[in-house]
């Protein structure tokens, strides 16, 4: 009896894993939440369900990087992910599962662009990170404060206009002055930002899209 039950759960689990991934990749929020709820009802661990969704989000990231997916597909998948993760959060917190890292993100002072930075934030969340999103037009001091308050390991700076890019350098200088350079890594990105620019201002990482940003944060935090 016990044996049969185990097998049947095992089969369903394999089936649901694919369906969970697929509904995430196609951005079907309600379907995904239903599947997550029934997986939990059937005794799956929240951590395992989360890992399946993270794998799905990585597929979304890959397709975005290959330009098979564009903003709409990524946003819908990320929204489904956020909403399904909401179901898991209380359980994860109760069982002591920690996020794999904390990242403070924001668009720098003088820059009012929001969309690209938000996509990076959602992709990071989708990959198991806790994201503290400070919004746009964020002063250098605010980034440092938020990193101190939350104990974030990474600050992600976004700039979409060239005139706001010097604020990235200022943030790094301030971090140095505070003696935090080294313990908090700084990532930079945005349309006009390049690897050369990142090097020239002493940033720890640069990525040219949201998927690359997730990979870079993982690299910086040495997460496999």
């Amino acid at each position, binding site marked *: 009896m016990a044996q049969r039950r185990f097998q049947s759960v095992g089969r369903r689990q394999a089936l649901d894993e694919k369906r969970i991934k697929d509904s995430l990749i196609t951005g079907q929020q309600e379907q995904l939440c239903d599947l997550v709820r029934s997986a939990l009802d059937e005794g799956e661990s929240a951590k395992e369900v989360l890992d399946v969704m993270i794998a799905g989000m990585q597929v979304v990231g890959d397709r975005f990087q290959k330009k098979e997916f564009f903003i709409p597909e990524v946003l819908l998948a990320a929204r489904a992910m956020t909403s399904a993760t909401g179901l898991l959060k209380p359980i994860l917190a109760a069982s002591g599962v920690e996020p794999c890292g904390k990242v403070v993100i924001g668009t720098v*002072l003088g820059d009012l662009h*929001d969309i690209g930075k938000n996509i990076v934030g959602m992709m990071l969340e989708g990959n198991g990170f806790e994201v503290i999103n400070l919004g746009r037009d964020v002063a250098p001091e605010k980034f440092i404060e938020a990193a101190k308050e939350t104990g974030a390991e990474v600050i992600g700076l976004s700039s979409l206009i060239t005139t706001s890019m010097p604020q990235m350098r200022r943030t790094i200088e301030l971090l140095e002055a505070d003696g935090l350079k080294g313990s908090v890594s700084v990532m930079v990105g945005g349309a*006009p*930002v390049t690897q050369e620019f990142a090097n020239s201002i002493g940033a720890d990482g640069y990525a040219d899209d949201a998927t690359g940003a997730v990979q870079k944060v993982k690299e910086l935090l040495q997460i496999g």
Partner: protein
Amino acid sequence: MASRLTDLIAKKRLLIVDGAMGTMLQSAGLGLGECPELWNIEHAERVQDIHEDYLKAGADIIVTNTFGGSPKKLKMFGLQERTQEINRAGAELAVKARGACSRSEPALIFGSVGPTGELLEPLGTATPHSLLDQFTVQIRALVEGGVDAIIVETMISPEEAILAARAAKSVLKSLPVIVNLTYEPTPQGPRTMMGTSPERFVKMLADQNVSVDGVGTNCGTGADDMVSVVAALRGCTRMPIVAYPNAGMPRMQDSVAVYDEAPDEFAEKTAKLADAGAAMVGGCCGTTPEHINQLSRRLSNVA
């Protein structure tokens, strides 16, 4: 529909659009976090000077300094209450500049309408109705200020671009409207960040019965990557096509964006957009009156 725009295209075959406004304002002293459109009021003479420099460089079309003039964009600077004043002033400055540079064939003035920075439902929270309202307020002021046509520029969302075009026609049915999207090269061909191809956009316009007077592309890339966009549009529409690329891609030098493409190189590459079928060519970010001057000279020599 007869308009000065269609007449001029028929007569001259190829029209030169002006170059960058934003990067020119920065060189003129526009500071970090300042609202570029407010310069239409606070530094009107400098904006007018830029228009006049482009007219002297040979531009047939000048574009108003109202790219970020939607109420939503102005709100980021606490200026939404001044939407009407700022856009109207932008149009009037271009009219004044045209008056100051008399010539046999007066230039056309395109009122610039850029993205609101909001995403439409279901991706974002903006409703079609709210965007339509915003564009209508902006475009009405541009028309009051005297623009000859509206250019909807640098759009990545085809739906938002279409709403701007609808708003323009609702303000004045006879107002010519041109709609530009910004594309990037992908393995499947040019796509906007929303995944829209040039062909798909032209089909959307037709399917939704949106009447526009031209389609095109600007910003995002240099001229090299724009050739495929113009070719794709040429393959699916008979409407006039407009294309104005950046002066190459920006490179950062000492925290300042440098567009490396020199005027002669820019002119040579941008002339190929005319060969590919564009009826209006000019420059976007990083271009200067000298870029437009060389482009204009090259194309008038060819013609």
